């Protein structure tokens, strides 16, 4: 029961976060530096989500050819840069990982 309550409160807070600026835009003063900084939000948040998955193994930085996810991720980035295609990128990255795991 407590867990249900926690989930409901967490859900309401999450919704509040998503609604925050959408609802309040124009009514709250926003510094121009922050407004200009917003254009970098997609790429910085994406990088912050990607990089730990590629470079960290159980919390430790692993930069070596033994890090299969790093190699597969870098090849996927190359494919993404060449093709700009999400589907092709996912398939290429997944194939690289399976291949690297197999050898």
């Amino acid at each position: 029961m407590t867990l249900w309550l926690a989930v409901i409160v967490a859900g309401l807070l999450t919704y509040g976060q998503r609604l925050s600026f959408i609802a309040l835009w124009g009514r709250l003063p926003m510094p121009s530096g922050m407004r200009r900084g917003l254009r970098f939000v997609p790429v910085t948040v994406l990088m912050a989500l990607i990089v730990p998955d590629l470079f960290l193994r159980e919390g430790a930085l692993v930069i070596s050819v033994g890090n299969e996810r790093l190699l597969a991720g870098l090849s996927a980035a190359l494919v993404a840069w060449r093709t700009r295609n999400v589907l092709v990128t996912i398939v290429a990255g997944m194939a690289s990982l399976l291949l690297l795991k197999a050898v």
Partner: protein
Amino acid sequence: MSNARKAFFAGVRAELPILLGVVPFGLIYGITALAAGIPPVLAQAMSWIVFAGSAQFVIAQLVAGGAPALIVVVTTFVVNLRHVLYSASVAPYVQPLAARWKRLLAYLLTDEAYAVVISRFREAPEGPGKRWFFLGAGLALWATWQASTAVGIFLGASVLASWPLDFALPLTFIALAVPAVRDGAAAAAAVTAGVVVIVAAGLPHRLDLLVAAGAGAAAGLAVEAMGIRPAPEPARGERAE
């Protein structure tokens, strides 16, 4: 086909490739939530009450570790703080909409819907049918998330767990991030965010993510200020329909 419907399906189509990464993530969430001892009904309810993949994973981890309810709530709040940034980022584009549209679209503002919607809005800030595009992308993701987590819960631990399916999501994010690096300032922002997130990896509550995003944006602004390229600000007061 009406313009609204066309824009709606354009949103669905734009979201489709992303769904390939979302389905395995949903499956794994379902499996993980059950393994953490969360009752199946609650595990599925989380998918529409919280509706945020990474936060749901964190909740499952916390529950498995016996964390108290307050920690679950606070941690979810911190993990989801990036949604405030998303909200600020799409806000100028949805400003002309009625309040009920804003309330609906805010519910659908996930990582994956945001990435698709914001790149469309930036490419065509004056384009028609923005709210329908957003709704199409958001609902496609919502339905896929509900279905895939349900299948994961239904399957439980299975052979799927031995496949590296969790890698599909970072791959999706890579596919979204690479085209977003359009100029020197964006590249500086991306590299800084990547380095800082590693340095800050020890921070509790996934605060590393926010610190990295903030540092990256600051680096982007700094490079921009050096005159490499001015920022195209989203036009204000444009039509959004």
